[in-house]
């Protein structure tokens, strides 16, 4: 995907994206727990700076936005609970499944197993 983005960007074009990733330095068991609890698109922990450089980007900047992610994930759980009467009617069993998945993801972030980053770079 990064190489595809580089191809369609003008030289000097900018890329900036948010990504959820497994935290560095985890045991295999912890990494599995993070991957299992994470959202559909969770990175597998490879270093994004090296991935971007290999894809033809430079000036990589990585900002950890995990605290904001934690707040947002907790807010989704809280606000869906607040709307549970209507959402259960709307979604059926999917409501409980999605809330359960959010709660597991929240616990995983709180345990330091999953992080979210804002990453920016320039197309070389």
């Amino acid at each position, binding site marked *: 995907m990064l190489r*595809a983005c580089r*191809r369609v960007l003008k030289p000097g074009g900018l*890329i900036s994206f948010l990504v959820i990733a497994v935290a560095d330095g985890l045991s295999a068991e912890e990494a599995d727990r993070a991957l299992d609890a994470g959202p559909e698109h969770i990175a597998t922990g490879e270093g994004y700076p090296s991935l971007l450089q290999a894809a033809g980007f430079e000036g990589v900047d990585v900002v950890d936005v995990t605290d904001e992610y934690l707040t*947002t994930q907790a*807010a989704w759980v809280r606000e869906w609970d607040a*709307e549970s009467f209507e*959402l259960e009617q709307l979604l059926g069993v999917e409501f409980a499944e999605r809330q359960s998945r959010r709660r597991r993801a929240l616990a995983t972030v709180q345990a330091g197993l999953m992080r*979210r980053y*804002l990453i920016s770079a320039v197309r070389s």
Partner: protein
Amino acid sequence: MPPSVHRRARLDTIGGRQPEDVTMTNGSGDLASEFNERYRVVGEPAMRRAEIRVIGSDYGATSYTTRAQADRLAGLLELGRRKLLLDVGSGAGWPGIYVARSTGCRVVLTDLPLEGLRIASRRMQHEGVAGGVVAASGDSLPLRDHAFDAATSSDVLC
């Protein structure tokens, strides 16, 4: 008639391939099907209220990108009029359409679930945002080389 997912007239200026190539990548996978089903309830009042309270969006998003982060992305990407933005894995248009509207840039949204792109296309028309939507995988973009000033995605890359 619902708006076309692939808006050929505008996209011909940035894409070098034929629309037939695009429709072949229209999300036949399980994940695309699952997300198509999720878009069925976009716009329902309870979904909308929760979305507004959590991330400040009313685009039918269930992501973690807040309005403040969308504004931050717009600044980092130095967007403005005459700029063209690519949003990969755009869903129903958050934050790509919002960023385009707030900065005046044009935007091309790409994703696999067609239902999300239909919602996004209608929203773009409603808000008067220039650009288009393309049903395509992020690693096989049917778009012309060197066409974009900036690219973004939210929780898609892996």
